[in-house]
């Protein structure tokens, strides 16, 4: 089945009214007719209308969306699944929410950075126009600010890793809680810098915030060793890190060796897939419905192995979030590419995008 958006928070009387008359419209629903007037009125899934698009650096853009029903809110740092219609097809991707959850304008925003070979991000950055309707999925993610807020915080980001962090900073600003915050952000060039103006504005308005911007083209990348100079009290701070996998790996190591790893929170934009080829043995995957068997090495997701063989398999977010690629395993064992966990999955529903075969696997796809 195709991926669907989140269930919108429809007022109870409205829902009851629709339920009362639904027998008159069977097998359709009253929604199917309301949708003809305004696609945002369907109560089956939350949709939103693109209100504005603002370029964010040279490679990214903020897409501001007005949801059809009240937005349930999000915790700063979380992401939302977004369904976008491109060339007749719906594509779903997860993006960090960059809006302040308490902003009064009621808009929800994401700020995708263009991935040249991608499908959705180039569309969102370059082609989408105000007025277009998008589908909004569940808000998810555990990379959020603790409650109560820590006394002092350190934010480290690079590139588009700044997206969950800008939402956190905006929220802290709104709550007047930018009292003791260090923000270290790297971008390759000034042109590519995302939220440069917003970060500098926050820095200017809050004495308690210190911004360290680094342009890596000239200054080189930040290494964990630079931390002692940039933020000498990093050990005492609650740290929030988001950026490329390499950077995060380095930081995790640094915190584990020299600090307290429990005080470090991180967001991995790309799940660790394909990184651990050496770990697993791989195996052969038998796609029962397609009647095709493929070899799947220990670093390739089952989905990718099938697609390489030319199969058209269900897929969604491709990072283990949306459950669209799920299929029932008839027999066999899989290894989770994110955690390395190996499990016997006979008779279970598995996600093909984040798991690889460990030995022979039969799946009903």
């Amino acid at each position, binding site marked *: *089945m*195709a*991926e*669907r958006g989140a269930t919108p928070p429809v007022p109870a009387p409205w829902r009851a009214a629709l339920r009362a008359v639904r*027998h*008159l*419209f*069977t*097998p*359709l629903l009253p929604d*199917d*007719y309301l949708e*003809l007037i305004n696609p945002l009125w369907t109560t*089956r*899934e939350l949709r939103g209308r693109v209100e504005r698009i603002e370029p964010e650096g040279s490679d990214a853009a903020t897409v501001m969306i007005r949801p059809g029903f009240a937005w349930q809110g999000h915790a700063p740092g979380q992401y939302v699944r977004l369904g976008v*219609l491109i*060339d*007749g*097809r*719906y*594509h*779903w991707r997860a993006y960090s929410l960059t809006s302040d959850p308490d902003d009064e304008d009621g808009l929800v925003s994401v700020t995708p950075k263009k991935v040249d070979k991608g499908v959705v991000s180039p569309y969102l950055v370059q082609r989408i126009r105000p007025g277009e309707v998008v589908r909004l999925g569940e808000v998810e993610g555990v990379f959020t600010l603790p409650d109560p807020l820590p006394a002092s915080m350190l934010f480290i980001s690079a590139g588009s890793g700044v997206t969950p962090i800008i939402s956190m900073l905006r929220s802290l600003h709104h709550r007047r809680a930018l009292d003791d915050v260090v923000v270290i952000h790297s971008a390759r060039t000034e042109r590519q810098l995302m939220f440069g103006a917003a970060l500098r504005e926050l820095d200017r308005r809050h004495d308690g915030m210190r911004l360290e911007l680094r342009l890596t083209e000239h200054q080189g990348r930040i290494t964990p060793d630079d931390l002692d100079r940039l933020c000498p009290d990093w050990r005492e701070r609650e740290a929030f890190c988001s950026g490329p996998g390499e950077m995060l790996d380095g930081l995790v190591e640094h915190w584990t060796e020299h600090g307290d790893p429990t005080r470090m929170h991180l967001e991995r934009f790309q799940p660790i897939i394909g990184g651990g080829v050496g770990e697993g043995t791989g195996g052969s995957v038998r796609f029962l419905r*397609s*009647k*095709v068997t493929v070899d799947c090495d220990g670093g390739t997701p089952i989905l990718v192995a099938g697609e390489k*063989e*030319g*199969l*058209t*398999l269900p897929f969604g977010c491709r990072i283990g979030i949306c459950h669209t690629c799920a299929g029932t395993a008839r027999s066999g064992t899989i290894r989770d590419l994110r955690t390395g966990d190996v499990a016997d999955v006979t008779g279970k529903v598995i996600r093909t995008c984040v798991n690889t075969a460990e030995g022979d696997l039969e799946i009903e796809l």
Partner: protein
Amino acid sequence: MTPTASTVDANSPLAHLTETDLGKLEREFDAIHDEVYADLGERDRRYIKAVISAQRQLAVAGRVLLLGSSRRTTWVLGTACLGMAKILENMEIGHNVMHGQWDWMNDADIHSSTWDWDTASTAEAWKHSHNYIHHTFTNIRGKDKDLGYEIMRIDPKQKWHPVYLAQPFYNVLLMALFEWGVAVHDMDIEAVRTGEKSWSEVRRDLRGISGKARAQIVKDYLGWPLISAGAFGLAQLAAGGRLPQPRTSRIGNRLRKAGGGRWTRIADVADRTLAGIERTYLATAAADATANLIRNVWAHAIIFCGHFPDQAYTFSEAETKNESRGGWYVRQLVGAANIEGSPLFHVVSGNLGYQVEHHLFPDMPSTRYSEIAPKVKDICERYQLPYNTGPFGQQWWMVHRTIARLAFPGGHPRPKPGPYRSNDERRPDASGSEAARFRARVPAESPIAGPEHESGGVEVAPPPRNQ
């Protein structure tokens, strides 16, 4: 030679095709499929969205017009709109969405896994009996249960039985009650009798059908008639009783008869207040029944014309044993028959006027059938295969002539039209016309004939491709 060659009937269109021919055919048909699939996009989405939107607007127009169903003109117009809405819903939308033709859009609102239609058979049962059984075993006698729907003899090679004497009569009944016929057919009573189907499955099917029946009764024969009746009541109230209505009401008459004078006063009140409401209720219910009837008769006509005209071939199980993918394509090609008509005719018939193309590529969006038809015809010419087609009137006449004739014992296969005659006639060589030379320039096995990769999302699976 193909393994089937020894078993095929000498008159079968398969008889003159070698294994190499079938291999080439397979690649040519695969290439047509792949070319269309590589091109699907916004244009196709706009089409199906427009049809769905038109269907829903027609349904709304029909229901609104029928609020005034006590007037003859609005009754006729409302019934026409509703009948057309039901036809579109069943043919161009329901049938095709449930074939998975629009699954590529990845749109949960228009998807074979979630779609249900306004007819008596459940989506699940229909997808099994139609998408799987009928589209896989097309026109194999004894395996394709759509061949005469197991109640009619439509091929002289089917054994006669005295019960078939009545088939011209129950064919008319089936025409009127087609959706119920399909629902019962989906249940596969034969399998129940032979014990292949368990009682729990039968119970589940019956629950499904009764659920759909209840939904249709509640909507068409209770809900909307009540709303029309209520609308008339309100309008009468607003008009201060000036709207024309019958002088007596049915309930009033009944009361007078039953009470023998005791309830005259109540009966008089009923006459004044209920007469118009009653009439409107019954008129809307009758309009809904008529719309269902129109849809049933139309669906019956289109489906029968797609399968049972004289041109369509049937096959024995022996002929299709060890069938290659190319052989599968040929069987689909000659087992179905097209109906010629205007673009509007094709939309209203769910593009099943392109039954041949539909059977070759059941999962291809229906709007593409008219585009690939010339290519399919071209393949037929080059491989000397019949391209079955004819005008609606002719196809309909042939079908019902067959049903009448084969009610009685005997009967011979009718001569099959089309370019294919016999296996003595060799195909013209490539040095003939300019058109033939042009076609010969790109051999089927050339890589530019089209990319080869597995087709996805097909409920009906042809035999796997040889890599």
